[in-house]
């Protein structure tokens, strides 16, 4: 026994010594990852990489905070999100305020890098070219252009990066390029992308030839605008006039007409390539049809699919925040969060059905402001008395009809006495009152009205329009107006109006320009257009210094009428509507010209001594 033990033990000791000699087992692998070499040796993996670059779209514009709340479209309900830092013009380079990941400097550059890697690797001779290699290179170029254009419109001329850095790169510091260089860089990528993507089948969520044309149209329209024409910008803004590097932000000189022509041609290329939904009408559709058309377009269904040139789609299998628009923006009386609520300024800009302007000084209109308005109002806004989804089972006793309640009303109690009923969708509601709208409105444009979708706990599947056909039409109209081609402009503008039941526009000159601008505001509401339009038209000092406002609604029982459970009924109630400005302690809007551009964060300034900060920061 003893001897055996000794032998076994010594054997064991020696065997351990042998096992230690080979350290191959230290070469473990990350089992959940793929090596770079494997990716660029396999077209299927390469495709997965290129599709990954689209993730820079984030949730599109469907985050809890929306760009609309930085404009005269909406106000954000909840404090502490950095929204007022921007609307009150308090941004500084250490605290920019709310910057969405879909436009943030670091995010854009990280996606640009991915595009650069993809372009470089797939252009390499070692890459095993497949049937879709051209397509993938085309998409990568489109994406590089897309993320670059985000930098351009939010920050101005940016350092153009068209090659992947490595850790061994000589320098990491890159100076800003001029606005013109940036435009040319983006346009070149888009032209190449359009060529590479020609004839390729459409995959929803991914770039196409038409998407390249549509983005080019946007970039060239911006390039032609006031804000980016050096002399105009300087004339309209002392801050810009005093900025030493105006070429970062605008064309210092050159022919504007030529830029408008390019913009017009780029837009026309889109209009020639596709049709959108319900365009080409020669007369207005009915009001009801108009509402349905607009809803179809914003839901991208029943024909509205064609409106979307490039979308960020959402499906229930992957519950992403973009599917929670109803929760983020819906009324508190439906247990939703009422984040980005429309302001009265927007509501007032919806025309009457007959194409005239709404006016509070018109007593009939002031007494019934939600009657006979542009169809798009009803498809975009939830207002007092609007019919909406059934409320949660518990709240149906308070409102069996599912109507929006944003006012204060008289009702009668069991004893027959008049008592006050605070609307369920107000900040005095018994339901989650801190989430109530400050304005008296809720946003419904992108919210699926299907009652089976209970917004507080069901995700919806409405895509975000990254690029929309109608934008290109509007771009075309704008360029045409600026080029004096008013007939052509009205022709296209009216097609947009006819499909929602609005009568034709007949104005000329500046009046036409103003009608167009309002049309763009209304048609593209909440689509991340207004933020840029107001800036590039340089009307921000007027438009964005206006205080956010809302509506105060009081419903009193007509003489002799009684009602226990409140419902909207003009037969029973007299309604009084009064516009109220936002309390300055809630949000005190202000415009300073520094807000034309976002500041480059001071940490990035510190990292890169080649950078020059934007004016005013």
């Amino acid at each position: 026994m003893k001897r055996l033990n000794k032998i076994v033990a010594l054997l064991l000791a020696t065997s351990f010594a042998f096992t230690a000699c080979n350290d191959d087992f230290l070469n473990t692998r990350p089992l959940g990852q793929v090596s770079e070499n494997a990716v660029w040796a396999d077209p299927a993996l390469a495709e997965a990489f290129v599709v990954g670059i689209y993730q820079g779209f984030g949730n599109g514009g469907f985050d809890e905070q929306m760009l609309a709340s930085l404009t005269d479209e909406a106000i954000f309900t909840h404090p502490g999100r950095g929204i007022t830092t921007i609307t009150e013009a308090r941004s500084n380079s250490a605290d920019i305020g709310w910057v969405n990941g879909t436009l943030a400097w670091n995010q854009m550059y990280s996606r640009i890098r991915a595009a650069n890697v993809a372009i470089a690797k797939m252009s390499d001779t070692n890459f095993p070219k497949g049937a879709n290699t051209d397509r993938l290179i085309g998409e990568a170029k489109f994406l590089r252009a897309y993320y670059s254009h985000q930098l351009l419109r939010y920050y101005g001329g940016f350092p153009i990066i068209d090659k992947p850095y490595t850790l061994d790169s000589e320098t990491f510091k890159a100076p800003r390029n001029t606005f013109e260089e940036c435009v040319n860089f983006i346009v070149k990528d888009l032209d190449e992308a359009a060529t590479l993507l020609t004839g390729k089948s459409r995959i929803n969520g991914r770039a196409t030839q038409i998407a390249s044309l549509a983005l080019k149209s946007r970039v060239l329209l911006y390039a032609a605008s006031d804000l980016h024409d050096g002399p105009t910008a300087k004339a309209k803004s002392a801050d810009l006039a005093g900025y030493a590097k105006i070429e970062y932000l605008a064309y210092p000189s050159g022919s504007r007409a030529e830029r408008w022509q390019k913009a017009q041609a780029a837009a026309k290329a889109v209009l020639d390539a596709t049709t959108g939904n319900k365009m080409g009408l020669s007369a207005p559709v009915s009001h009801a049809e108009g509402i349905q058309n607009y809803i179809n377009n914003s839901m991208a269904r029943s024909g509205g699919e064609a409106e979307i040139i490039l979308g960020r789609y959402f499906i229930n299998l992957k519950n992403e925040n973009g599917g929670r628009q109803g929760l983020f923006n819906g009324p508190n009386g439906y247990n939703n969060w009422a984040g980005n609520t429309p302001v009265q300024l927007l509501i007032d800009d919806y025309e009457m059905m007959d194409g005239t302007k709404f006016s509070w000084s018109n007593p009939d209109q002031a007494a019934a402001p939600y009657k006979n308005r542009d169809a798009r109002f009803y498809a975009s806004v939830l207002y007092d008395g609007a019919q909406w989804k059934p409320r949660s089972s518990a709240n149906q006793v308070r409102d069996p009809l599912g109507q929006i309640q944003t006012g204060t009303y008289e009702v009668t109690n069991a004893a027959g006495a008049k008592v006050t009923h605070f609307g369920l969708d107000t900040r005095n509601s018994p339901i989650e009152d801190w989430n109530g709208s400050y304005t008296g409105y809720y946003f419904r444009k992108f919210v699926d009205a299907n009652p089976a979708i209970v917004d507080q706990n069901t995700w919806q599947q409405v895509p975000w329009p990254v690029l929309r056909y109608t934008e290109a039409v509007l771009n075309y109209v704008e360029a045409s107006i600026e080029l004096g081609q008013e007939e052509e402009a009205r022709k296209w503008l009216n097609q947009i109006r006819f499909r929602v039941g609005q009568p034709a526009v007949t104005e000329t000159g500046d009046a036409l320009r103003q009608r167009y601008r309002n049309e763009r505001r209304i048609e593209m509401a909440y689509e991340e257009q207004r933020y840029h339009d107001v800036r590039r038209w340089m009307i921000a000092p007027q438009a964005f210094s206006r205080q956010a406002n809302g509506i105060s609604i009081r419903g009193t029982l007509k003489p002799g009428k009684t009602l226990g459970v409140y419902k909207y009924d003009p037969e029973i109630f007299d309604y009084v509507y009064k516009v109220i400005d936002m309390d300055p302690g809630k949000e005190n809007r202000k415009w300073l010209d520094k807000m034309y551009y976002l500041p480059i964060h001071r940490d990035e300034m510190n990292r890169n001594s080649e950078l020059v900060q934007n004016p005013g920061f």
Partner: protein
Amino acid sequence: MKFSTAVRLFALTLFTYLLCLGAVMAQSRQVSGVVLSGEDNFPLPGVSILVKGTTTGTVTDVDGNFRISVPSDAAVLVFSFIGFVSQEVPVGSQSNLSITLKPDTKSLQEVIVVGYGEQKKETITGSVASVKGGELAKSPAMNLSNSIAGRMPGVVAVNRSGEPGYDGSSIRIRGSNTLGNNDALIVIDGIPARAGGIDRLNPNDIESISVLKDASAAIYGSRAANGVILVTTKRGKSGKPEFTFQVNQGAAQPTVIPDLADAAQYAEMLNDLDIYALPVGEWAAANQAYKTAGTFTRPNGVVRKAPYLPNELELYRNGSDPWNYPNTDWYKSTLKTWSPQTRVNAQLVGGNDNVKYMTSIGYQDQDGYYKQSATGFKQYDIRMNLDATVNKYVKVGLGILGREESRFFPTRGAGAIFRMQMRGKPNQPAFWPNGLPGPDIENGENPVVITTNATGYDRDTRDYFQTNGTIEIKVPGIEGLKITGTGAIDKTMQFNKRWETPWVLYQKGSGFEADGVTPKLVATVRGPADPRLTEANSNTLNILLGTVASYDKVIDNKHTINVLAGFNKETVSGNNFNAFRRYFISTAIDQMFAGGDLEKNNGGGAFERARLNYFGRASYNYKEKYLAEFLWRYDGSYIFPEATRYGFFPGVMLGWVVSDEGFWKNSIGKTMDFFKIRGSWGQLGNDQIFFGGALQEYQFLSTYGFSSYIANNTEVKTLLENRVPNTRITWEVANNSNLGFEGQFMDGKIFFEFDVFYNKRTNILWQKNASVPQSTGLILPAENIGEVENKGYDFSVGYRGNVGDFTYSVGVNGGYAKNKILFWDEAPGAPEWQRSTGKPMNTFLVYQYDGVFATQEEINSNPLDYKSITNNLRPGDMKYKDVNGDGKINPDDRIRMDDNDIPRFQGGVTLNASFKNFDLSVLFQGAAGARQYVSAGESGNIGNFLLDIYENRWTIDNPSSVHPRIANRNDQYFSSGNTYWFRSTDYVRLKNLELGYNLPSFIAEKAGVRNLRVYVNGLNLFTWDKLGVYDPETASSTGQYYPQARIISTGLNVTF
């Protein structure tokens, strides 16, 4: 030889040994007797008795009795016991001995576990702190890591949460040393980084814990940079089987429940907020109007109603109408006063000369704080340690641990639950007067309901099966040479099951019940629309194989030489799998198969890790007077690429027992009879690259990770670059120096120890994201760029004495550590006062609070320009210091703070006393030098305020120049990002107290037991702190976390 073959062979061999154990027995004469203490003449249990020159031995039982077989009358017995002078007794013809041991107040004979061995405290040259398992077992804490704070100098333990199952302390040895991961390496029974860690070890199984604080950890090189905690479990001993049964019943409650505003106070503040929304000019009038009429007519004619009218405030105050004007204390409604906890342990220890065993079975049950709690923790554990002397050459040791940890929770986490209690509006009902649960604050989250199983359940079951075995072979023919083979195979399995169901709350409907008084309530279904089930399974296998050769030699009784060398090979592999289903047709079946096919989902993954280590030690001492030791380790880690994979980590330690010198003995030695100076220097490694709280492996590889995107209405897999690789990445190196001395006076009545240290961490693995512009788009890898120094001291002083039967001891220990960033990637350009280089790690950049604008006049006369941060200064706004003196408050005026949230000083005071059969042990523990951010970020119309804020706030009636106006959440420029909101967390607490009584042995014997002890003890009994609102150990700025526990408990130990 294949790796797995070695494992199999090893296991097989161990098994064979065990079968053979019974074979070795001997015949001889029995001697028995009793051992008494010379101090008090009481029997001494646990005295070890050895037949000189053999390995035969035993220990005395609780009554000091022993029985031992001796080979012949010529045998000599050696009696030894810690704290007593050893005694040699020739047996002669006696068969019954009565031995009295003289106390040796020098406790330096104590043996301390160090890396790969043990050393006498007297000859230790490193800085090593230790604590006996018995001390730790005095704490009623259910998590062993919570019993450590204040026990060992330089060991900082901070407890951040009391949630059953997640109530561990984070342990830092001598503070923080690196920008990355600062966790100490935990070695359990010789196996590094053992799964499960220290938290869930049964305190009754612990023999001792040693902490290697300096270069003495170098023998664990690669992962030792943050210090090493060595846990040694109890082993068997020779003697009659000793069976101990312990039961402990305790009760826990939160240490601190924040004081919040009540309904009337809250309503008052909402009225305030409504006024603050108006232009400042209207404030005074509005305030007056709200307090009297309740409505205010604005200059523009608009009538504004106060959110709460004066009579409503009164109704909240007097509580006369609980249906309409409730006044809810959400904590009281949700938490019970005391939550029970139970710990049971049965232990059997015994053995003979050849085989010794220790088996222990434990059970724990811990309830959550909530009423009808769905939260709890249960544990079953079994440990068996076997030692066998097979023959004079071979010894075998085996350790087996089996443990099941079962955590269960409701489907809403503690964060959400306590968020709702902090936010909970005091003017909403938790329960209606008729007992039905009230409405939610939002998302159905009424805390009185979501703490129960009404929401389903979330279970987390972890099973550990750990084995370790050693074979120690004395090499025949070479005296002192030993080869020890070690193997450990640890398997961990985890199963998570989450079953989410809708639940019901009640809100007021319209009208009344038949009684005409009780409002009708409407049931409302909240939570998920339909049940959902998520299950996840994972398992991990850790394998360690190692061999150590050691050689011990004493030459001429003067030169003691010890040489040791060995290697370890470690692998960890794991895989996991998860699945999800919804659309269950009912809540009746909570099994995966019963779910619908729509939107079902699953996933899984795997990982592998490996390490290879060579290590050794050479120590020499001359007459235990001059001491020298050299330690080294050569480590290879999978974390680094082949070229830079290996690192060499040396340590040198020297000691001089000055008191052994003639000059000392003849002079100061009369009083100070022991004095040792020691010093150490070493380099240790750290390969734990942590960003964002997660280990970042494979920084040297160009790899892409998976994600997904929606294209053509399907979720397609995408690939994203993980990083640009750093192919030169290598070890982070700790350069740790220590200088210490220790000594004792009056035969050990007073003892002391003092250490100063200087740690410099170089090659710290961090991203260069401060200097590489983001325009590169690079996702940066870790690079060896950082340098941090950490210096400080730790000490302990003690006194022990007795007055007759009353014996007592007092000890004080403490540690101070302050770190400073010497270099990291900080971009140039920031003003000097904002730079983090030269400051401690993890400090904030904030504006400096400078009081409050009490009035409009003060604002009008204010010379500073606040335009960069606000365009509208109003009374009650905070003033900031214009640090650079340019007349403007802008981001340049932010300063880098000095403190972070880890205390710089932590210490403890222990008191132990015994009188006759009573004993008392007390631990006070305290910490200083940390700050905690206290936020009002969820106060306002979204939720309640701290009472502290209510009482101190600026108001129109009571303008304060110290405290600001309240804000709606953090909607004011001063609501965050300034020094006002950082509060000191300095505290002292009565951490642990135990009072015990041992039944006199003559009574116990009658009851048929050897010993019976009853005791009461407590944890976190009292706290004196500066924070004032939450437990001072919190890391939560909003108090939205499961608070730390105060525990009282009582127990009984019976030994048969």
